């Protein structure tokens, strides 16, 4: 290689690299409309893609045969039934706390059903919609009973186990600052790891949503050794979330949830739904079950959509009992409004 040529090539190479560096500046593009019709994509694909937890007992977890089970999973199945009348037309994508939002933003999943707290910034700046709140929760603390702690205010100087990258972590620091409490955090991303750290005594207290605490407590070899403290330091409304920009799909999610609630309120279960279709004369039951009016059509679904959902999945109470009661979670704030709870469905009309 003679020097001349080397210089030429080097110049060429440099020029190319410089061009490469300046291109991005030129690459401005007008913003396009937000991603369109999720529902169309779901229908043409023939399956609903659901982003779920990688493994959280009671909410989403594969069983020994690899079949996904849980409260959030049942919501995915319910929406699949509403759209396709087939609970098996769902694909589950396990997502971590980190990639759950990107997964939905990028269109990898159609729906997130992953114990996600509704917050203003998630609704607005992350570009999501939270059509429904299917689980009211709050953050609390659990300690070993032998510690002799009766109030969260006594936790000054304690070591607290907390999952990072979630609202739980921020609530904890806010609360500690407000109450002038010093604590040592132990932050572990994977939940089972965190729970075993607490169980082994690595931390004095474990903080997460009260439902999670109850589940953890009941899973311990001796639940009486653990105590959930009375303080609830935050509101944690959990619900499925969808991309902004497809109101029809959001409507289906919202009204599927409401149908589950209304069915429970009206006492319609998977066992008696066929009978109810034939015999129930209450006007709202008739509208819900598609006997009267065109509510299903208004959603862009079959009029029998709610019947199908209730028949194949059950009502809200059945989903709750099936998934959450075995792990020790009580209805509490998630009882029907008629029972003094917060679950309240707008009318089917």
């Amino acid at each position, binding site marked *: *290689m*003679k*020097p*001349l*040529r080397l210089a*030429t*090539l080097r110049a*060429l*190479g440099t020029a*190319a*690299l410089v*061009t*490469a560096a300046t*291109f*991005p500046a030129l*690459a401005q*593009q007008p*913003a*396009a409309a937000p*991603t369109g019709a999720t529902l169309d994509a779901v229908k043409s694909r023939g399956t609903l893609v659901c982003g779920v937890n990688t493994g959280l007992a009671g909410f989403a977890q594969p069983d020994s045969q690899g079949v996904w089970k849980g409260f959030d999973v049942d919501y995915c199945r319910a929406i699949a039934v509403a759209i396709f009348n087939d609970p098996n037309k769902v694909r589950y994508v396990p997502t971590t*706390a*980190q990639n759950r*939002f*990107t997964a939905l*933003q*990028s269109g990898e999943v159609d729906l997130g059903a992953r114990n996600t707290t509704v917050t203003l910034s998630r609704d607005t*700046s*992350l*570009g999501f919609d939270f059509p429904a709140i299917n689980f009211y929760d709050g953050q609390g603390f659990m300690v070993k009973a032998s*510690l002799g702690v009766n109030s969260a205010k006594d*936790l000054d*100087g*304690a*070591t607290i186990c*907390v999952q*990072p*990258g*979630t609202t739980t*972590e*921020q609530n*904890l*620091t806010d609360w*500690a*600052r407000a109450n002038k409490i010093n*604590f*040592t*955090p*132990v*932050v*572990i*991303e*994977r939940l089972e*790891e*965190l729970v*075993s*750290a607490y169980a*082994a*005594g*690595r931390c*004095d207290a474990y903080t997460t949503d009260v439902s999670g605490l109850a589940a953890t407590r009941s899973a311990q070899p001796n639940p009486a050794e653990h105590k959930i403290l009375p303080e609830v330091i935050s509101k944690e409304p959990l619900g499925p979330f969808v991309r902004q920009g497809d109101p029809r799909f959001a409507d289906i999610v919202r009204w599927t949830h409401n149908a589950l609630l209304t069915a429970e309120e009206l006492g319609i279960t998977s066992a008696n739904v066929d009978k109810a279709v034939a015999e129930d004369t209450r006007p709202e039951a008739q509208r819900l079950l598609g006997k009267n009016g065109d509510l299903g059509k208004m959603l862009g679904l079959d009029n029998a959509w709610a019947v199908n959902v209730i028949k194949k999945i059950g009502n809200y109470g059945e989903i709750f009992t099936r998934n959450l009661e075995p792990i020790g979670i009580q209805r509490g704030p998630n009882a029907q409004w008629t029972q003094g709870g917060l679950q309240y469905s707008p009318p089917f009309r």
Partner: protein
Amino acid sequence: MSDSAVDPRLLRPPPKRGMRLSWADERFRAIIWQVLIVGVVVGIVWWLVRNTQHNLEVRRIATGFGFLNREAGLPIGEHLIEYTPASTYARALLVGVLNTLKVAVIGIVLATILGTLIGIARLSKNWLLSRIAGAYIEAVRDVPLLLQLLFWYTIMQMLPAPRQSLNPVTGVFLSNRGLRLPWIQWQDAHSFALLGFVIGVIGAILYVRSARAKRMQDGQPRKVWPAVLGLVVVLPLVIWAGLGAPWQGDIPALRGFNFQGGFSVSPEYFALLAGLVTYTAAFIAEIVRAGIQAVPAGQWEAAEALGLSRSRVMRLIVLPQALRVIVPPMTSQYLNLAKNSSLAVAIGYQDIVSIANTTLNQTGQAIEGIAIIMAVYLCISLSISLFMNWYNARIALVER
């Protein structure tokens, strides 16, 4: 980069003719190829950047590092510098970098020591010792590090709770909250004494060098140890005594929930360090073994024939030669250890990856978060490479 040897054709005077614009001309072809490939790469990069910008705009994700000055609000268990949840993200990330360095630097030192010992044990004449060392190396190398870290962390959790902690010596407590050791209450005098020690060590090194250089000239052996002792030990002691010789013990004691006071090592740090050290040591042991075996037996015989003692043969003849074989692969092991420390995120040690992750999760600044992680590791890798290359050049055989 200097890997391609000088082309002999370069030595000839270049031919006079210019470049022809024809496929038959090698130089023309080279230019076309480069333009083509660079063009393709630039095109792909441009396409990706354009998509990204578009996507960010659509998703209304603000770019930039402005978030660094916002309040972090994330709790960090271990910090070498002052930190509270009210500190900024920038400070939280700095804490993460320091935590990464803390585990990487100490890990490299310990892995080198342990690896060398195991490598020597592997060569031992004692059959049992050599076999156990061999079995250790195989077992550790063939299981993923992540699994080993999880295993170590599980082991740490099997230790007793603080109130039943093991207390082998007064003031030393071992529990599932980690290890607590007595420490002195750190005061300014100690900082100055430490500074004096560092200066003393540098001075001692310079002194020993100049003494050696003089010995090379006149052949007279010089006693260096009194001056070295004075610089390294007496100087800091004098500074400390001069500042009033403060000495206040800080003995850990169980107060409230945890041990208070003393020097503590958290279980997360210990599990990460133990996992990294035992894993890397297995690789280093193999490197050390190969290095020592690469020194021909003739070197031993020749040195013994000169009447040198065995330890001197090892120190003066074998090790310097083995080092030349050992250092380059050792560099890549050090790099691996530093990079593997990023697995801390799996067992809850808050290193830079863990903190940057939480940051990107809370702020949604994915690109910036990952760019920070990559930049930090590139800097660490580059520093290790530069240092080891310098060291390698220093010990390299000076060839004629």
